[in-house]
Each structure stands twice: as structure tokens, then as C-alpha cells.
């Protein structure tokens, strides 16, 4: 039986080509929404298509988008990471303190990002070894990390950062802001990780059922540590990038960012019950959120109304996705 003659994989692949649209349905829908939004805004606002505005839009999306990348990985395992906002603050604090005491920017950034990875792994330890629900474990670390940052900075903002570091925050490469490149490169790396590596396969398996994964010989320990570690790592990178952009490290930096990251991942098709979601989806989700916020701004809609609209968008996006998938299944 197991030694039956080999068949050409192409035959299997060909018969399923029609389902490509179905498989990437969420991403295609989101991309269409984004395009329609952009077309609409370019007609209604003269400012929208200017390079200044677009570059601003990308800068704003990038921070949230980078955090959402790691959040997506964690959500696919069936978990959640509420600590990312505080970890953004932690990264800013570490990088700021190190640089003001003379550490070269690159070294400071690497140390900060590694520290954030360790915080993420700590979340993984609490969740796997302690059996604490991810929501609670990361709620705890969110509070602890924020407290730590306030304590070590005496609740003071760190400024006077070296020029070489700040230059990165304003740099453009090939006409596109540096933040975007960081986001894009990380998105590509994580996409490959989720789709093409054993780790990515395991992340989806754990999200669909930890018990099935365990009985299939998948190490929950190693994979959960790493998944939460990546989430911490992404938040750390976002924290460094944010610090360079705003030219200072505020102890409150990153507060409530976890909610925007969750929203971006969820709008992008990630399901809080696990095993569903893509990096591309989270990228589009972050872009749509920022586009609506900044587009509304340009049209003179007040901030509070926009807030209502974005809240409604989160619910609506998930609802539509559910209906669409329900129809596909039947």
C-alpha cells in the first residue's frame, strides 16, 4: 500500500487551481476594499495622493503593522498577547537608556530587541508550564512590564538620542520611508516562516487542537515559546522603530497598541479560536485601519466619529468573513 507507484503531484495541483481564489478570498476581499478606499479618497481629497500624505500613512501603519505580524502568529496558535504594547515601551526604554549612556545605536537596538524576545518567551513559559490562559498570562506581563518601564525611567521621557539613530527614523529608501521597509521585510520573513517551515506548520496544528498536535509528536513547549517569543520580538522591533520616529522614548509609549494589533490581525482574517490567519491579511488589516483613520482626517471627519467607524469596521470585517466562510462550507 505504502509503496504504490508514485503519481505526478501536478495532477493533484491542477485539479485544485480553481480553489485558489477561495483560499485567498479574505486577502483578495481586503485588498479590494483597500483599493476602493484609496480611489475614493484620491477623488474626495486633493491631499490624499501627495507623497507627503502617503509616506505619513505608511509610517503610521508600519508600527501597528509590525506588532500585528507577531500577534498574528500567536493568534494562529489559539492564543493572544496583550503584553505587546508594554513591550513596545520596554524596547524604547532600553534602547534610549543604552544610547544615552554611550552604547552604539545598533548594539543598543539589538539588546533591546533580544530583551523583548525574552519577555515573549516568558509569556510562553507561563502559558505552557503554568497552564495559565494566554489572556491572563499576558495581561499580567503587560502590567508588569509597564510598571518596570515606569520604575526604571522614573516615569520620565528619555530624549537627546544620538543623531545617527534619529536619522533612521526620517530616512527614505527608494522614496519609501524606512519604517515601511522594516515592516515589509519582516512580513516576508514571517510569511515564509508560516507557510514554508516546520514551525509554521506546527503553529497551525497547535491552533487547531493542542491535543492533536501533541499526539502527532509536535512539541507544544518549543513551538509556544517560539511563537510568543516572536510576538515579543516584533513588538520590540516596533518599539525601536517608534522611538527613532518620535525622537524620544516615552514611558507610556505603546499603550493600547495591543488592541490595534489584535484588530489588524482579526480584520486580516485571523480567528481567535486559532488555526486561521495569514501575515498578508494582517498587513492589509493594518493598512485599512490607518487609511480610514487618516482619510477621515483629511475629509474633516472628527476623531471621535472616526473612532466609532473603526470600531464598527472591526466587527463588520469579522462578521462578513464569517458569512463568507459559512457560505463556502455549505
Amino acid at each position, binding site marked *: *500500500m*505504502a*509503496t*504504490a507507484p*508514485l*503519481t*505526478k*503531484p501536478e*495532477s*493533484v*495541483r491542477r*485539479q*485544485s487551481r480553481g*480553489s485558489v481564489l477561495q*483560499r485567498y478570498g479574505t486577502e483578495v476581499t481586503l485588498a479590494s476594499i483597500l483599493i476602493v478606499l484609496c480611489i475614493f479618497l484620491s477623488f474626495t481629497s486633493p491631499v490624499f495622493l501627495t507623497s507627503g500624505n502617503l509616506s505619513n500613512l505608511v509610517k503610521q501603519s508600519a508600527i501597528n503593522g509590525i506588532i500585528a505580524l507577531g500577534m498574528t502568529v500567536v493568534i494562529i496558535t489559539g492564543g493572544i498577547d496583550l503584553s505587546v504594547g508594554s513591550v513596545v515601551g520596554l524596547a524604547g526604554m532600553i534602547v534610549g537608556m543604552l544610547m544615552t549612556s554611550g552604547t552604539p545605536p545598533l548594539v543598543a537596538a539589538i539588546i533591546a530587541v533580544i530583551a523583548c524576545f525574552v519577555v515573549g518567551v516568558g509569556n510562553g513559559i507561563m502559558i505552557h508550564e503554568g497552564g495559565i490562559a494566554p489572556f491572563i498570562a499576558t495581561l499580567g506581563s503587560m502590567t508588569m512590564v509597564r510598571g518596570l518601564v515606569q520604575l526604571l525611567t522614573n516615569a520620565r521621557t528619555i530624549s537627546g538620542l544620538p543623531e545617527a539613530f534619529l536619522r533612521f527614523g526620517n530616512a527614505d529608501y527608494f522614496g519609501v520611508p524606512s519604517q515601511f521597509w522594516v515592516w515589509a521585510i519582516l512580513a516576508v520573513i514571517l510569511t515564509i516562516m508560516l507557510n*514554508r*517551515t*516546520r*514551525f*509554521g*506548520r506546527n503553529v*497551525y*496544528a497547535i*491552533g*487547531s*487542537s493542542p*491535543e*492533536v*498536535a*501533541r*499526539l*502527532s*509528536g*509536535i*512539541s507544544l513547549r518549543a513551538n509556544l515559546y517560539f511563537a510568543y517569543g516572536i510576538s515579543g520580538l516584533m513588538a520590540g522591533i516596533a518599539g525601536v522603530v517608534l522611538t527613532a520616529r518620535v525622537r524620544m522614548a516615552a514611558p507610556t509609549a505603546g499603550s493600547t497598541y495591543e488592541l490595534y494589533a489584535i484588530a489588524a490581525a482579526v480584520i486580516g482574517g485571523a480567528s481567535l479560536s*486559532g*488555526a*486561521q490567519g495569514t501575515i498578508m491579511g494582517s498587513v492589509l488589516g493594518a493598512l485599512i485601519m490607518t487609511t480610514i483613520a487618516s482619510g477621515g482626517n483629511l475629509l474633516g471627519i472628527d476623531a471621535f466619529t472616526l473612532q466609532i467607524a473603526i470600531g464598527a469596521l472591526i466587527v463588520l470585517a469579522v462578521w462578513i468573513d464569517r458569512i463568507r466562510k459559512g457560505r463556502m*462550507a455549505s
Partner: protein
Amino acid sequence: MSPLIKIENLSKSFGGVRALSSVNFEVLPGEVHALVGENGAGKSTLIKILMGVYHKDIGSIVIDGNEQEIRNPSKAKEIGLAAVYQDVMLARHLSVGENFFMGSLPLKGGLVDWNLVFKRADEFLAGLEIAVDSRHLVSELTIARQQLVAIAKVVWQGARLIIFDEPTALLTTAETDMLFEIIRRLSREGKSIVYISHRMEEIFSICDRVTVLKDGRYVATLPITETDKDQLVSLMVGRNLEEAFPSRHCRAAETILEVRHLSSARHFADISFSVSRGEIFGIYGLVGAGRTQLMHALFGADRYDSGEILLNGRPVRPRSPMNMIKRGFGLVCEDRKQQSLALPLDVRTNLNLVHRPQSTRFGFLRPEVEWETTSRFIRALNIKASSPYQKVSNLSGGNQQKVVIGKWLSIEPQILLFDEPTIGVDVGARLEIYNLLQKLVDGGKTILMISSYLPEVIAIADRILVMREGKSMGIIDHQDATEEKLLRMASGLEKSASASSEQATV
């Protein structure tokens, strides 16, 4: 006395497979009526029809002289039919009183009148002589008391016929006595009881009459005083085989796996056996015999306390499934949806779920290897899926099971553990699985197979270990195995010579 419920000529098919054909069954008011039969005899189908879960094809159900159509569960509840299952159907985090009044909590001034809730619930429990305070949360009670509360709840809701499905599987002897006391009381108050159990002694201690089903057919209804255990067992077995099993031929070979005095505090004790390469080793027993826990212990998924496991003559200590997979083990679980399949993921991912060294390079998946595996097993196992991207949750039971089997075959295991390999699998796919098992052992693999389905385990297995309540009742050779013998051993009516000699050496 006219019967409370009278069922005549009831038939039900699922996609061409007859689950029940022309079954007759009646229960008198105040009667405790046992329903017995092997797994697959049609007991659950009959119960589910009465509960409104399935709808009958033909036949009549007459209740109190009126013919009834039980279209849905709420209709069953309305006419007073209720079932109490092993896994108790109560809201665990609510109080007992709240469970009684769920959906109809009494109000006073717009607020819930808690005093009234607990007062009335306490009175009702006292009336049934169930010693439970209705202010307790259900989760604070023992399993046995939860079961009593569940019984009280269905009586509270007006049940006249109460079906007990293996109610004592999780109970101690004292708790079983407590349950029987309640059942006798209910029967004295005129409630009718249908009692389903594999345990003969319980049937003889509590039931008035017994109805035997076999292969979806009605066999007989007897007053309990006019029959005995031996007669019931022989009525339950001895079938005309409709299914063709592939013929077995086994060659003697060297021992690959040896288990010595394996014990796990709560589940099994002092289990010893050895399995040869190329053998199909069956494990038979009734619900709660500890078979699944034994298999999970061998796979490293559950702990065991003492004993030795030797693989190819060398002692091994299964630490985790990962550990045992590396040693060439695979496990097809009984609960496919909870333990074997990544339901939201597609066929291709499921077939490649277990890691093989050749399927990755530096941690990166090799798509060409995965596609080769996917198309090979879809074809070799005849998996009917619309595409490799189809989610496994949308496949039929048989095709899901083939995906699970394919997932393990892809890693070329040496020893495959099957826990109920054909559960929820239709007849056609079942035969394919039997043929596959035969091919696997012909190819030098070794199979351990748990089965509750007697014809299957007898036809497929070279030797059969019979377990009862965590203990070995002996190992039977293929040529000595009869349905009657196995059932008698599993029911504790008989022990094989080998079992007693093994125990003598302890």
C-alpha cells in the same frame, strides 16, 4: 397493564446501511426494562429515535395508546421521554437549584426569587431521598451525585420514561447501590425505566425484563426471572456474518514489543503481553476496561506507574508521543475529531502533520515531498476529497479515518496502534481498512488494535487480550476465539487459563 410505550416494526437506515430493522420494544409503567446487545446492535440508534435526535424510516411508536411522531428533542421532552447519559448534561458552574429552574426562574419584584428556587428544589430532592443541597454548584458534587441530580432534573421536568445509558461506568460499588435505590424508588412511583448496560450482574439485580437486540434486529424479550447470564450472552452473539473479512494468515516471527506487569494507578493493573513482528494483536473489553489508557501509555501520551516495556528486547520508557514516534510508533485514536485530526486544516496538511526527517531541509518544508506524499496517499487509500485543499472537517467518517491512517503511514512506522479503527466508518470503507491492515502486516509492520466490535476483533486479530476493569482476563488465540467466549471473559463470567497462571506468578 397496558404499556407506556410500544414500538413496533421500527426501521432506520443510514445511507443504505440498516441500523435497525423491524424492531419491537415495549415498556410497562413502573417497569425497569433492560436493553442489551453488542456494540453496533442498534441500542443507541433506538434511543436516539426515542429522544428525537434521529427520525424513524418506518414503524410505529405508541405512547399511552396514541401514536406519536417524535420529530425533535423538544417533542420527546413534551411527551415525557428523557435520557440520562454517562457524561452528565448539567450546567456545571451553576447551582443545583438553578439547573432545575433553568429557563423558568421564578421572579419576585422583577428579581430572581432565590429562596423559592432553593426551597422547592430541596423539597423535590428530599422527596426522591437524594441527599444533595440545592445551593451547591454541580461541579462541587461527585460524579455519582451529579448523576442523581441529573435524574432528579428529568423527573422534575415531567419525564415518565427515563433511559439510563451505561450509568454505572464511572461509579463505585457504593455509588451504584445509591443509584439503584433511586431507580427502584422511581419505578415504585410508576416511572418506566430503560436500562442499558454491558454489566450482566446489574441487569439481574435491578431489571424486570430484558430485550435483546443483535445487528439491528429484535431477538427476544424475556422476564429476568426466566433467563440467566449464559442465555443472554448467547442471544447477543452468534450472528450471520454479512461482512466479508479478509482471510488472515500470520507467520511466526521474533518478538518486537513486550509489556511486563504494566500498571497505572487508576486505569489498569499488571498487564503483560508480547507481540511479534507482523502480528495483529487485538485488545478487547467493555467500556471502561482501561484499554485506551493502556494504549496511550505505550505511546507516551499517558503516564504509567510501574512495569516494563521492551522494544526489540531493549527496555524503553515512553516519555512523550514525540519520543515514541521517533521509535517507530503511530497511534490512530478512538476520538478522531478530538485527538487525531486538525479539523480546520486541509487534507494535505493533515497527511503531512507528523514530522519526517525527509520532509524538511534546515527546518524548511519541502513542498515536492509533501505533494508526493499527499497524492500517493489520496490515491493509495482511495480518499474521496474534492481536492487536497479540502478541509478534513467536511469529509465523511471513513475518509477522515483514511486521512488519519495516511498521516501515520507517511512516517513508515514499525508499530501502529489502532484504537477502534472502524468507529464511525461505513461498511464499505471498513472493508478497505481491514484489507489495509492485512497489507500492512504482510509488509512486516506490527499492529495493536483495540476493538469493541466482536466480529471485527475475532476476524482480524491473531491473538486477543481481553481486559475487564483494568485487569487482564487472558490472551486468546485466533483459532480459539468465539464471540461468546470473549464476551463471557469481558463480563467476568470466565477467565482463561493463561490469565490465572500469569497472576499466580506475581
